[in-house]
Structures are given as structure tokens and as C-alpha cells.
């Protein structure tokens, strides 16, 4: 059995009448990149806050590296980047980082050494300009996010927890974040992040857990999850028009469960017992000018829609049938 970086057993949390998380269990192996997926309001942030023990679950237990998360020394091995980011505006960048490092038990000297390293790596310290001496509110938004990210990683945590890390990042910073996540994994660290952007999760994650309305919908490795839901998905691209004719075929619910028009192609989920060949046949009969017809594994996005859409959570959110 692989060693677990994080194990959650049956945690629940309610705020008055509202149940944010309902007996959630999951396990994250050491060294994995783990995605916590779900629509807004699914309970991702609440779950993460319980993991790092800033709110206590009503019931259930959480262990980090085999030790309860109420143990301060196990929490010191965690780096956390909250969804809503912010730092002391009037404080010097270097002092903020030193403070954050010291709070995790880092010595001042060691903290300073690492701050230099990271600042250079994120080009916040160059030959011309050392942003470390500036105050936080003198930095651009992108720079502030870098500083915050450094603060998360300064004490070289074994487990890195990022709450919606991609939100608000421009493509360059998003790429830098992705590279850092990959690098962390190479160094044997465990990365857990939440997101509602399935593309990111699909590219980065070894394993995922989808939660909706405080309940776990599914979890497992990304290939495993895909295999489980794969087989009956078709990507269809048409050359030119003929969409009306095709639409009649695709709206036959005996055969087609769901169609997602992605503009350049349709992503079609067939009913379990439907035969893709029969669909191809009927499309040709309908006179469709087919450019692409391919049996594909569903994207996480598709699985997410299927699973979360099926439970009826926030239909409007997904924007699809």
C-alpha cells in the first residue's frame, strides 16, 4: 500500500441549516498531484480549510502524513495558498516573506537565503531592481500573486494545498504555476489543488475527486475515471452546413444521451447500449458531410457535466443540458 499524504475519513461540516460537506472521504497518495473538482459552492474551500485545521469538522478525522491534522508539527509541513489572496499591504515584501517563513518554523537566516532564491527565480529580484525592498502595495497584481506563492512554498512543504490557484492568473503566470506544480511533483512533493477549470485538472492531475453540494461524486486516478466513463463517446466534426439534418439525428434520445456543441466539433455521449456504428450510419443517411468521426474518451469536463449535471446541482452553472 502506498503511503498517504492525506487521508480524510467521513468529515462533515454544517453551518446552521446549511450542510457544506457531507461525510466526505478521500485519500491522496504521497507524491501525487490531486485535483479537487466541483462547481462553485460545492464545498471545496470548506474541505480545504478543514484539512489545514482552520475550521474543525463536525465529525470525521483528517490525517496528514499519517498524523492527525490537529498536530501543529504536521501542519508545519503544509503550504497553503487560499483562494482569496492578500498580504499586508504596507509591509515590505521581504519582511512579509520572512514573517510567513518564520511562522512555519523557519530561521530568519535560512528564510532570507530562500527568499533570494525564489525572488530571483520569479524575476522579482534582478540586477536593476530588488522588489523585495518595495512595499506590497507597490507591486502589480501579478507580482503580488508571485510573492504569495513564494510565501506558500518558502518553508519547502511536503504537502502543497492550493485553493483555486489558477483563478485570476494571466497565461504567463498560469504557465509558471503549472511548471512549479510539475517541478514540485518531480521533487516528491504532494500537490492538492481545487479548481472548477477542468482543462487544468485534466492536464495536471494524477488523481481527482469531484464533489458537488458537499458530497463526493466520484474519485480515482484520471485514467481510471476516464476508463470508467469512456467507450461511448464520439467526437464529430462536419464540413460545411447540414446541421439541421444532423440535429434531428442527434436529438434522438434513444441513441444519444447528450450533445455538447463545442463549436468546431460536437462531443457526443451515447446511451450505454447504443452502437456508434449505427450513429455513423444514420448521419451518413441524413446527408452529413463528415470531416471527423472518432471514438474518444470523455474529457473530465464531460464527466463532470454528466456526473454533476445528473445530480441536478447548479444546472445553470454548467451552461449545458
Amino acid at each position, binding site marked *: 500500500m502506498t503511503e498517504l499524504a492525506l487521508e480524510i475519513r467521513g468529515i462533515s461540516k454544517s453551518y446552521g441549516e446549511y450542510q457544506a460537506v457531507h461525510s466526505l472521504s478521500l485519500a491522496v497518495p504521497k507524491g501525487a498531484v490531486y485535483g479537487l473538482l466541483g462547481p462553485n459552492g460545492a464545498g471545496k474551500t470548506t474541505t480545504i480549510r478543514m484539512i489545514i485545521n482552520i475550521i474543525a469538522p463536525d465529525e470525521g478525522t483528517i490525517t496528514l502524513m499519517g498524523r492527525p491534522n490537529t498536530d501543529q508539527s504536521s501542519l508545519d509541513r503544509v503550504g497553503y495558498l487560499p483562494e482569496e489572496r492578500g498580504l*499586508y499591504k504596507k509591509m515590505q515584501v521581504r519582511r512579509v516573506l520572512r514573517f510567513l517563513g518564520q511562522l512555519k518554523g523557519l530561521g530568519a537566516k535560512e528564510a532570507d537565503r530562500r527568499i533570494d532564491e525564489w525572488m530571483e527565480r520569479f524575476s522579482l529580484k534582478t540586477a536593476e531592481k530588488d522588489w523585495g525592498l518595495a512595499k506590497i502595495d507597490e507591486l502589480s497584481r501579478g507580482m503580488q500573486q508571485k510573492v504569495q506563492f513564494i510565501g506558500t512554498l518558502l518553508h519547502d512543504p511536503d504537502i502543497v494545498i492550493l485553493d483555486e490557484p489558477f483563478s485570476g492568473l494571466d497565461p504567463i503566470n498560469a504557465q509558471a504555476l503549472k511548471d512549479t506544480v510539475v517541478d514540485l511533483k518531480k521533487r516528491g512533493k504532494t500537490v492538492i489543488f481545487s479548481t472548477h477549470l477542468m482543462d487544468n485538472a485534466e492536464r495536471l492531475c494524477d488523481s481527482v475527486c469531484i464533489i458537488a453540494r458537499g458530497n463526493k461524486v466520484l474519485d480515482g486516478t484520471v485514467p481510471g475515471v476516464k476508463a470508467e466513463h469512456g467507450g461511448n463517446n464520439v467526437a464529430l466534426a462536419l464540413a460545411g452546413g447540414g446541421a439541421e439534418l444532423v440535429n434531428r439525428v442527434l436529438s434522438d434520445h434513444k441513441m444519444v444521451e447528450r450533445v455538447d456543441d463545442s463549436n468546431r466539433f460536437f462531443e457526443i455521449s451515447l446511451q450505454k447500449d447504443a452502437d456508434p456504428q449505427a450513429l455513423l450510419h444514420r448521419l451518413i443517411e441524413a446527408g452529413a458531410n463528415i470531416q471527423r468521426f472518432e471514438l474518444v474518451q470523455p474529457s473530465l469536463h464531460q464527466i463532470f457535466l454528466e456526473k454533476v449535471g445528473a445530480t441536478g446541482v447548479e444546472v445553470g452553472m454548467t451552461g449545458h443540458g
Partner: protein
Amino acid sequence: MDKLWVVIKREYLERVRSKWFIFTTIFGPVFFAAVTILPAYMTNRGMKNAQVSSIRILDATGTGLGHRVADRLSKRQDDQSPTPGPGGLGGGQVGSRIGAPASGTIASVVEDVNPPKLAMAESLATKDVMNKVDPGYLVLDSATLTKFTARYAGRNASAVGEIQLIETAIQQSLMASRLEGAGIKPERVDSLTKIRVDLASVRLDERGRGDSGIVSFIFGAIVAFMLYMMIMLYGQNVMRSVLEEKMTRVAEVIMASVKPDILLAGKILGVGAVGLTQQIVWVGSAAAFITYGAVMAKAMGMPQMQNMTFPTVPPLLLVSLVLFFILGYILYSAMFAAVGAMVGSQEEVAQAAQPVVLLLIASIIFFQPILLNPSGTLAVAMSIIPFTAPVIMPVRMTTIQVPPLELAASLIALAFTCLITIWAAARIYRIGLLMTGKKPNLKELTRWIKYA
């Protein structure tokens, strides 16, 4: 404990390094010195101006009273070695007694006038005063001898100190001439009339409570105001700091590293240490001011400050003062911290803090009646109620001997309330920091405290 230290260090250093702190710490004493010294300096300068040119004494008594008066005016009132000779123009001597405004000298020129020509001399003198040749003139005539009245006209006629000096000089001169008339030798007359002046200053001392009565009364008022200011300033500082952490969301990052209780404790202790630092600087500079102030004052030609002494503070009072400051500060800063954690914006915070501010203001509203009647029912009650005790009890202690039982009751009630408040505040703080949206009502707040 290491983390508590890290939090305290940040709270302390970030404040001590701030411009606001440096400004108030340095300019606090400067401002204080300014309000103390300036009025004295101005008064003194006013007196000196009067010496630049001499007042004119029109003596129509024909008894040499004018010369006597001029002589008196030229000498320090408590000078025990009279300089003989009338019309002395000596000046520059300075007196030294607090509360004896009739000290100092005024130079004068005596003009003996025939009574019939007095009116003309007077109108001439009026012209000279108006043309700023003389600062003023004094008229002594037969009425001075019989009815003890005299007239003074001058640009400085409203300067209380000078009028009093002149009055005293006339009074003494009249008495001296009467004593001489009764057959007492002139040398004796001088020393006899001087005694009265010394007696006057003794009487003034006895009006207060013992030797340092007035000083300790002022000391009480200063202590009360300082305590009130410090608790208010630094309590609200804690509140703003909590609100900042909540609004910038930095709280969540910190809470992933330290327990909120430690964060709260570190914040209160760190800010409190800043307050103590400031007080030490202030008290230190006040002590230096009093020690070296006399030298400064003398250099600036001000006699009044010379005998000012720092009141001797009994050890019990000192310990109590520090204790009441610390407990009072903790009580209020915990409440302010809870308010800061409750609200979600700068706009809301002022209103939400009002109940706490009012509790504190109550001690200042009733401060005067309590200072006037420090053993009354109101004073006793307010010095035991924990929310007013931190200011009111020290005030009472500086003015009267507070019964030990009352002191103990006050301290115990305060300490107990502190514990309950910290407990509740920590719970509100823990939940409030992560909450967004509208301010909780009383019912929700109770739930926070219950379930945190």
C-alpha cells in the same frame, strides 16, 4: 510559543517603524512641552517688554511715596536684603516661587508733581503712553493716602501679573510709610513689610493638599487622560489591525500556520508593547524635562518652572497604575478585536465599535465630578465597575487613599471580566475572520461564541 513571539515581533516592529509612531512619539512630548512652556514664556516675555522702558509714577502725595513704590517695584518681592535708595532702576532679577505671581520687577521713573498740576502731567503721560514712549503710568495722590486708591493707565493694564506687582508695591509702601509714621525705624520697616509677602505664599501652599497637593491633583488628571487615550488609541489600533488582516485575507494564510488564539494574543501583546514603549519615551522625556527643564527655563528667562518637581509616586500606586493600564488595555483591545473581526469593511467598523467606545468614554465623562469628590458613591461605583475601573480607580488613587477592600474588589472584578471577554472575543475572532458578508446580529454572535 515561538510562533507567538514571531507574531508579537511583527506587530511590534511594523508599528514602531511606522511614520505615525515616530511622529507621535517625538512630537507628543514636544507638543506637551509647548503647551506647558509657551504660556509661561509669553507671560514672561510680556513682563520683559514692560521693563524695556520704565513706567512713569506721578507722585502728587508730597510724601515720597512714589520713590518707595519705585524702590519696591525694582526689587524681588521676597528679596531679604533691601537695597537702599529710592528710584532704583534695577531689573533682570528673577523670582523662583510657583504660585507667587507677584514676583519680578518693574522699572519705573518717579515724577514728583504738585497736586494742582497733576491733571496736566497726567494728560502728558497719556500722550507718551499712546505714542509708545512709556508702557504706562501710575498716579498717586492724596486719595492714595486716605482712601488707599491709585490709578494705573497703560497699554499693559490687563496684564494681571504686573497690576498685581504694582498693587503689592503700593500696599507695602503705604504700610511702610504708616509704620514709619508710627515711629518704627526705616530698616525695620522693610523687613517687617516683607514678612507679609512670605506669609502670602505660605497660605497659598496650604490651600492645596499638603505640599504636593496641587501637583498630585494635576498628576491624577494627566494619568486619567493618558490611560484613557492609550486604551482608546491602542485598542482601536488592534481593531484596525484585525480588520486589515480580515479584509486583505491575509488572516487565512496566517491561520494556516498559527492558531487564531495565538494570533490574537500576539497582536494584543505586540500592540500593547508599542503603547508601553511610547509611554516610557514620554515619561522619560517628561522626567528629563523636569530635571533639565529648570535650566532651560532659566536660560529662557522663565522663573516659574524652577521648583517644579516630579511628584513622588508611592510604589503601591505605581504598581496599580501599571496593572490597571495593562488590564484595561487587554479588556478593551479584546473587545475591539472582536469588533474588527465581526465587520467586513472600514465603513461598518466605526458604527460597530460605538458601544465599546461609549463604555470607555463613560469614564472620561464622569471624570471631573469624581476628581472633585473622589470618595463619593459615583466614584466608588465607577471604580469597581470593570469597564470604567481602569481609568477611574487610578484617578481616585492619585487623589485619596482608596480603602484596600475597594481596590481589591476593583482589581478582581476587572481581572475576571478580562478573562470572560478574552474567551468570548477569541471565539468571535476565530469565526469572524473567515466570515464575509453582513455583520452578525446579536443572536448570530451568541451562536458564534457558543459553537466556536
